[in-house]
């Protein structure tokens, strides 16, 4: 048995009403309602957070590290996601927000946007040695999309960028530079990502493409929002902690990475259902000239993350405004070459397919199960109502074949069955009376 996978997305059983909202929205069909409560199938969940967004009872939530965990370390470094900058109105510069983080109790800040600048340069270097058959390069910035590809588009895995995420790069550099400057040991320093989503939290605990994360914890934007907003007011204009370019800051919005990496023959798509549709096209080889593909699970990109406070569209505009106050040079010119040579920016492990959709390891057995499944599916009403607790009639048939559901869980079949039984009872009553 494989060890239980870590997931940030969790269910609060007390709050769950057993409705079908999350069931119908899950892009990997990872939710079932059984016994009046939702259940998440660990092997299939990609931590995209769609269920968090749609649950009106707030029964789905993202587990993140509480702010107090930073006290595990003597020295604490904040790694703000660029989307954090979009959470506040009336902020004149990125530096103001970074200063607020120091006031919150962090010893240093290192912008993930600056990590994005370095990743931008690394990806552009990488693209120089690519042959057209390796196109399109698929962004790895959204971990939910990488996991989606593992589950639903395994044949596209070789196209995923083999450079670590900006948050990882930021953590590596932040830690090393801090230790060198202050002459302290790395074990005394903790790097904390301020996250807009559950997917990044999972990526910290359970990285894709490399073994251990350089990030020590992920703190929800929602948790620190109030505190940080209060600290922004007292701003001293003479300190400027911001080092990211406007391109790096722009990664908060969907399309920002594309603009930095490869504005020509590229595509940025947001919203997981839209991403799925375009990945289907890539899979069919329909987008032959596409060089770079950026997909974000959330509408608008990271600014639309489930753990953000501000409306994603408002945040998007705030980011655009703040981009103007940042260094306008392209990362190619702004990023020192030494960052590309001194740090291990590339991933070290091949990203492997997630076979959670597979019916059986043995193909003959899988075929038998599929035939049985299709036979069952034909006898189902095809309403995809979700009353049985599976998202569609097809998945219900699959669940029966896998032994996780019973045909009588379908209320329509049950109703028909009851009608027949009632009829028989009447007939039986008649015969016994005579």
């Amino acid at each position: 048995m494989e060890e239980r996978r870590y997931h940030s997305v969790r269910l609060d059983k007390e709050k769950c009403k057993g409705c079908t909202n999350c069931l119908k929205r899950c892009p990997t069909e990872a939710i079932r309602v059984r016994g009046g409560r939702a259940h998440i199938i660990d092997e299939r969940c990609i931590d995209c957070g769609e269920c968090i967004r749609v649950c009106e009872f707030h029964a789905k939530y993202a587990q993140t590290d509480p702010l107090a965990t930073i006290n595990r370390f003597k020295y604490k470094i904040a790694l703000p996601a660029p989307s954090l900058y979009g959470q506040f109105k009336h902020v004149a510069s990125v530096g103001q927000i970074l200063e607020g983080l120091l006031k919150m109790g962090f010893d240093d800040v290192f912008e993930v946007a600056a990590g994005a600048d370095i990743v931008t340069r690394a990806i552009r270097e990488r693209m120089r040695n690519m042959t057209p058959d390796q196109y399109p390069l698929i962004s790895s910035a959204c971990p939910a999309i990488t996991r989606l590809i593992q589950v639903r588009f395994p044949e596209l895995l070789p196209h995923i960028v083999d450079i670590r995420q900006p948050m990882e790069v930021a953590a590596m550099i932040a830690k090393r530079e801090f230790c060198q400057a202050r002459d302290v040991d790395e074990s005394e320093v903790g790097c904390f990502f301020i996250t807009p989503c559950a997917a990044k939290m999972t990526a910290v605990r359970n990285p894709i493409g490399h073994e251990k994360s350089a990030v020590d914890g992920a703190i929800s934007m929602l948790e620190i929002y109030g505190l940080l907003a209060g600290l922004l007011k007292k701003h001293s204009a003479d300190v400027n902690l911001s080092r990211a370019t406007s391109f790096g800051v722009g990664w908060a919005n969907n399309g920002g990475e594309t603009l930095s990496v490869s504005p020509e023959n590229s595509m940025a798509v947001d919203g997981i259902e839209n991403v799925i549709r375009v990945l289907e096209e890539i899979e069919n080889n329909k987008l032959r000239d596409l060089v770079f593909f950026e997909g974000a699970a959330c509408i608008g990109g990271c600014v639309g993350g489930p753990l953000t406070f501000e409306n994603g569209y408002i945040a998007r505009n705030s980011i655009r405004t703040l981009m103007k106050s940042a260094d306008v040079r392209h990362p190619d010119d702004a990023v020192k070459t030494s960052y590309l040579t001194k740090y291990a920016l590339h991933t070290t492990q091949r990203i492997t397919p997630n076979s959670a959709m597979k019916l059986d390891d043995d193909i003959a057995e899988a075929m038998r199960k599929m035939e049985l499944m299709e036979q069952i599916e034909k006898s189902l009403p095809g309403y995809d109502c979700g009353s049985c607790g599976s998202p569609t009639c097809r998945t219900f048939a699959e669940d029966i074949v896998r032994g996780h559901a019973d045909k009588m869980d379908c209320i329509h079949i049950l109703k028909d069955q009851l009608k027949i039984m009632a009829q028989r009872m009447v007939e039986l009553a008649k015969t016994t009376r005579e």
Partner: protein
Amino acid sequence: MQQHAMMDVFNITALDYASAGDASATIKRKLKQLGIDSTVLRRIAVASYEAELNLIIHSMGGTLTLSITTTEIKLVSRDVGPGIPDIERALQEGYSTANAEARNMGFGAGMGLPNMRRNADDFTIESEMGKGTQIQMRFAI
């Protein structure tokens, strides 16, 4: 030895752009559930999509048949006409007879048949004017 086999027949209607890609999407989903290796799957995905689109754009309607055994996957495209006048030319990359409507929709790059031939382990095509075209593709798994 008698092998376990499955067969599906998809009916494809001429000029039915609204359903374009449905059959190949179903084929892909099935193969993923059966655990077919992802590199083989990609080749079948491309070939089945091209075959389906060819039936919609060029034929007068037909069928796409998927047969699966434990050792190979077979795709057969059959249509009821009009037939291909010059197969050698149709197999050339970049040669297309797609009309303006199809080209406006992004089709007609002249890669349909070449892509099918390139991705299949085994590819045969027979066509008779006025009767129809039959394409057989085999993929070892």
